[in-house]
């Protein structure tokens, strides 16, 4: 059980690294949104799943409830994160940011 939890946490951490790199390296804000919208959600999901599993390992009923709460956090992040991404990118489109395209580079 612990090994599985550890694997999940490490996997989530790798996704967080990918997010951060994407956020720093991508050329315009639309593509940065790709990094933050997806990488962050999946990273948080994996990490929280791992933590919930780890929390179960000495089994107790209060531990089960705490794990269920962690799963609730995960569900709300799953709802809220793409929505926030969509809201920001919609706002950027509204203010007239031009997307970066391959042809722009000299």
């Amino acid at each position, binding site marked *: 059980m612990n090994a599985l939890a550890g694997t999940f946490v490490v996997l989530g951490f*790798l*996704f967080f*690294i*990918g*997010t951060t*790199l*994407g956020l720093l*390296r*991508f*050329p*315009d804000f*639309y*593509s940065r*949104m*790709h*990094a933050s*919208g*997806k*990488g962050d*959600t*999946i*990273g948080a*999901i994996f990490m929280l799943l791992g933590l919930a599993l780890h929390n179960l390992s000495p089994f107790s*009923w*209060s531990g089960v*409830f705490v794990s*269920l*709460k962690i799963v*609730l956090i995960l569900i709300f992040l799953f709802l809220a994160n*793409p*929505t926030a*991404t*969509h809201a920001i*990118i*919609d706002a950027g*489109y509204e203010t007239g940011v031009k*997307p*970066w*395209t*391959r042809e722009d580079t000299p």
Partner: protein
Amino acid sequence: MRYVFTFILMYGFWVLLSGKFDTFHLALGFLSSLLVSFISSDLLFADTRVGGRMRELIRFIAFIPWILKEIFLAATHVALIALEPNMATLEPRLVRFRTRLKREISKVVFANAITLTPGTITIRISGDEFIVHALTRKTAGSLPGEMEERIGRIFGEF
């Protein structure tokens, strides 16, 4: 009807949060759920016919593993692009297409699913038209694709 459903949902949420089963806390939960279902049950369920929603909910839960797999692929894809030395496959573009989905809830689920899956983010929904930002040429070609079909089937449109 929607009061009852909101109340049941809220009471379940309360028990999950509280984790205490003495009379005092259960009674407090009863009052709180009553209050919330009184204030904002019209937010949770837009129309009063709630009964038919259960089947959609079950189909939606069955849809979740598939979407998780897609998100996993998507995140790997973006992370790999971010790791490339000069990001050669990066070819961002805007895509416009019309959707066949009619109901608001299915459009919303579709938009969030697009946002979470390979290299695409929904920018705007105006009526039937979706404007989507795609990260590479390959992902731009794959819209609307299989996902629209699946979501349409969940919410009983096709």
